[in-house]
């Protein structure tokens, strides 16, 4: 390491096994191109066009936004491939889609469609409550959710090339996303000040692979791109996530469940670029119309999607 910023792909282990087909650097590379951008949930080609026009750096194609999944209940699954194809046809920016946790066949289908990223998401009903997808087996890169550092590093070890906080999708309530970002960043700060001898026990405590914990300590950040997600509804929410140290933002229901989606989408995109410039944030936050209806998370009856996987 020593300042050069160069690391080899973790050991000679699992990650390099599939490197012939799609090296980890190429998987991480696309995520790096998304940095400083906003990824928006869209349910049809028309919404995808609105998102692209607003300046989204990618779209997430799905059948129902998380707020509707919450309202309607039932089992949420991968979207109809035809819908994903239509959305892919409509835009030139990268297209992502969600697969259920542990449902590797859904991921295979998404890979065959030729989309750009798979989100192994807790927003859909999990297919496997113990195991995640072995993401090394795929040429397509994956993004996964996390609530804390240990969970993030476990996902990276499974092959995720991008991490997002889980937050609490479909609530329009930023509190959980803040909690999760602070937890990850706080643990990294703790780790940086830790004696090397203590890292073994720390790795055990957070249930993460030692080599990745050590690499995180050296880098002072997660070794892959880290986005925020789950509850972002306003430009201010998005800028808050950026100021807390995230590389970009996912907006789910926040855009298309609001009064004026095109305008709000545009405002959130600008807020992420100019996140540390309050004057720009004032400009973009003015007159956006109604935000999505929020859900108070003190209510015990609200299901916590974030707790669906470890």
């Amino acid at each position, binding site marked *: 390491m020593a300042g*050069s*910023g160069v690391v080899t792909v973790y050991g000679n282990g699992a990650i390099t096994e599939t490197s012939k*087909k*799609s*090296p980890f*650097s190429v998987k991480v590379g696309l995520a790096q191109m*998304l940095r400083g951008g906003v990824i928006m949930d869209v349910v049809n080609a028309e919404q995808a066009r609105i998102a692209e026009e607003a300046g989204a750096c990618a779209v997430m194609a799905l059948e129902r936004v998380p707020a509707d999944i919450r309202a309607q209940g039932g089992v949420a699954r991968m979207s109809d491939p035809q819908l994903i194809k239509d959305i892919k046809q409509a835009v030139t920016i990268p297209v992502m889609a969600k697969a259920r946790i542990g449902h590797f066949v859904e991921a295979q289908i998404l890979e065959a469609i030729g989309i750009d990223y798979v989100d192994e998401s807790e927003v859909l009903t999990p297919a496997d409550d113990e195991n995640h997808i072995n993401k090394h087996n795929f040429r397509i890169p994956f993004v996964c959710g996390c609530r804390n550092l240990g969970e993030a590093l476990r996902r990276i070890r499974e092959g995720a090339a991008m991490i997002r906080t889980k937050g609490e999708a479909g609530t329009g309530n930023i509190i959980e996303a803040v909690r999760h970002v602070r937890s990850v960043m706080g643990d990294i700060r703790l780790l940086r000040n830790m004696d090397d001898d203590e890292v073994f026990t720390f790795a055990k405590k957070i249930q993460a692979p030692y080599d990745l914990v050590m690499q995180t300590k050296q*880098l002072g*950040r997660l070794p892959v791109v880290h986005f925020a997600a789950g509850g972002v509804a306003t430009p201010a929410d998005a800028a808050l996530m950026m100021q807390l140290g995230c590389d970009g933002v996912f907006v789910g229901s926040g855009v298309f469940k609001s009064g004026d989606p095109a305008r709000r989408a545009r405002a959130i995109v600008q807020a992420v*670029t100019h996140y540390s410039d309050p004057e720009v944030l004032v400009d973009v936050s003015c007159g956006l119309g109604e935000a999505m209806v929020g859900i108070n998370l003190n209510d015990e009856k609200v299901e916590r999607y974030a707790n669906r996987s470890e």
Partner: protein
Amino acid sequence: MAVGVLALQGSFNEHIAALRKLGVKGVEIRKPEQLQSVVALIIPGGESTTMAKLAEYHNLFPALREFVKIGKPVWGTCAGLIFLANKATGQKTGGQELIGGLDCMVHRNFFGSQLQSFEAELLIPKIAAKEGGPPSFRGVFIRAPGILEVGPEVEVLADIPTPSNKTVHSGPSVESQEENGGSENKVIVAVKQGNLLATAFHPELTADTRWHSYFLKMISDVSEDTSSSTVSQSTEDLHFSEPPIYDLPIYQQQ
């Protein structure tokens, strides 16, 4: 001396980190007036439509065109290449605004979607002649554009073989295409025209800083022509007292 890096979206942190390794300060550029304090500009990789939208919202295009026109060095990687091109195909419905200046025709997402993203060793004789090092460079192509045609004043710095039966969304992976050899079609992936440099791949994602140092030499050449100030690769601009900026690792195969 400071080199500006357009920081609207994309891999601007990676460029700043690469410049820092060479002892040069990279400055984030988000607003037109910030361009006045820098001698050169790097337009990073990212989503070109997103960057074009953000540049449009903050009225950056006139200032960027002026920057190119007065002959200050500008380097575009990937999305930046699209920005600098005079013509681009494969754009979103309704097209997007470009800066222009580079006499070439660029195809967005020439190689296809993420599954067709790849790494390849590129032969870069002109860079190696000036910067030393091995004759090839590990090019990382992420949903990369390709340069279809260039004007007479454009110097080609690198190209890559491409199959004649290129089909974007199906077909074999690029690696197997390369193994087929035989195909004579080549697509241009790095060019230089006057003070404009453009690459379809991402030197900021590799540890090899020869492209960055090549660009810095272009800046020195300009400074010597116009004024006495030279590119000082000294440490004067490095603020070691500032909190360190943590950045992503560079992944490379063993």
